[in-house]
């Protein structure tokens, strides 16, 4: 049964499907309640009206909720805190019924936690979070390719996937882990939200990974660091896309640069070194990656080595 049919069927079971319209004048009883309410004293002084602040890309920060609603906030998302109770959650793991897993990284506080979350989702990884302007000394692993069947139409065969580079991810960095069907289900949810115009709930993943596309000797290597000052032109003052770091337990925007790669065999430790001047802090080794024998499979992002690297 399609979602819409199911919704129509639930809608038909509504015990009160016709409420009296707001255009009809208030009844005597309704007037009486209004008068009684207005006779209630107001707490003084009234607080200033709080508007929900917006992150770039229209993702609303959920600061407007107060009191009981905020206390009740928990739900299906497991927030993993990096430290004590007052520390904002560094990342959250959301498990879907279909078996897919969504990992949302809010800040660079807990690389081991992210590794563990990936491990539990079936992906071995090395996650390194570095200070701004630092990178790993390369090479510290043998670059390789995973196989990934993307959700694009007409693509029935898994394609080699080398990873991707990112900068200034809008909202939390989200990793969707699942096989083709699980990712399809997660994708369908997001499409549902978009169809309803509910962009706040449309959590497009930053990248997706299928554990079955990785061989047992392969490791996902991820390194990330805050975007260094001067790396990008700062947004004009007053623009909504300012280079800010906001941490909250529910939503966050991290401005980071980083890369995700697939390694095969032993992965050495990441030795932090300063990135060369003018270069992205995360960079390919001298001479660039050698992927000449493969085709790249994109997932809505341009993949592969940048020209000139």
């Amino acid at each position: 049964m399609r979602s819409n049919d199911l919704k129509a069927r639930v809608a038909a079971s509504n015990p009160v499907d016709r409420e009296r319209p707001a255009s009809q004048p208030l009844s005597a009883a309704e007037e009486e309640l209004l008068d009684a309410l207005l006779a209630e004293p107001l707490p003084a002084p009234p607080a200033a009206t709080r508007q929900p602040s917006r992150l770039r890309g229209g993702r609303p920060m959920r600061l407007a909720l107060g009191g009981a609603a905020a206390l009740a906030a928990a739900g299906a998302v497991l927030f993993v805190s990096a430290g004590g109770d007052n520390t904002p959650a560094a990342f959250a793991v959301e498990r879907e019924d279909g078996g897919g897993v969504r990992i949302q990284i809010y800040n660079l506080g807990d690389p081991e936690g992210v590794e563990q979350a990936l491990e539990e989702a079936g992906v071995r990884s090395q996650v390194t979070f570095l200070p701004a302007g630092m990178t790993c000394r390369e090479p510290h692993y043998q670059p390789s390719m995973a196989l990934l069947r993307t959700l694009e139409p007409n693509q029935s065969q898994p394609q080699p996937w080398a990873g991707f580079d990112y900068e200034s991810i809008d909202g939390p960095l989200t990793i969707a882990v699942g096989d083709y069907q699980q990712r399809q289900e997660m994708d369908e949810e997001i499409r549902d939200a978009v169809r309803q115009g509910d962009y706040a709930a449309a959590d497009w993943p930053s990248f997706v990974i299928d554990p079955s596309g990785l061989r047992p000797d392969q490791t996902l290597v991820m390194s990330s660091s805050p975007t260094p000052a001067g790396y990008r032109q700062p947004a004009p003052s007053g623009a909504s896309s300012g280079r800010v770091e906001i941490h909250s337990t529910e939503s966050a925007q991290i401005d980071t640069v980083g890369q995700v790669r697939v390694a095969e065999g032993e992965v050495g430790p990441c030795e932090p070194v300063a990135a060369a001047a003018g270069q992205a802090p995360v960079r390919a080794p001298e001479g660039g990656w050698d992927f000449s024998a493969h085709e790249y499979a994109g997932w809505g992002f341009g993949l592969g080595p940048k020209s000139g690297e």
Partner: protein
Amino acid sequence: MTSDNRNALDRRLAEERFRKLYAAHLREVLAYAVRRTADAEDAADAVAEAFLVAWRRLPDVPPGDEARPWLYGVARRTLANQRRGEQRRHRLADRLRDDLAAVAARSSGEERDERLESALDRLDPDDREILRLSAWEELTPSQAARVLGISAIAARSRLHRARRRLRRALAERHSDLAKKTSLQLKEEP
């Protein structure tokens, strides 16, 4: 402007805003409450409480149609407390209780979808509620999130899960019936 005048002006602006809020959303909140409790008195109490909280915390009530899920959220918590046995009649709801039938009448006469109702009944209350918020109140997952006090992403995820579970519950019932029918067929000589 003296501070007395200032307060009088604030008060008048607050009253004006509240009158609009009340007129725009009263019937919706009443309908929400009547849909969720068979007890008209509980429904009237939940409505009175929702608007009392709105009056006291007017600056916190979001503007426009976002006020609707906010009010549903307060009504929902009031109804939940009633179910926990903290029953007491709201002092402001006296007249409203008698008037409820006129405001939000339960529709009748239509054939009930018993299979759906039984499948809904077997769902987890949270799953059931988000399906109803979506289908009955026509809220988006983000608005339902405000009612339930969860994040927008968690609400979307829950809605998706609830739909899947409802489909499953409907199918289960179907296959149970099929099983029963085939058993009967076998047992009959």
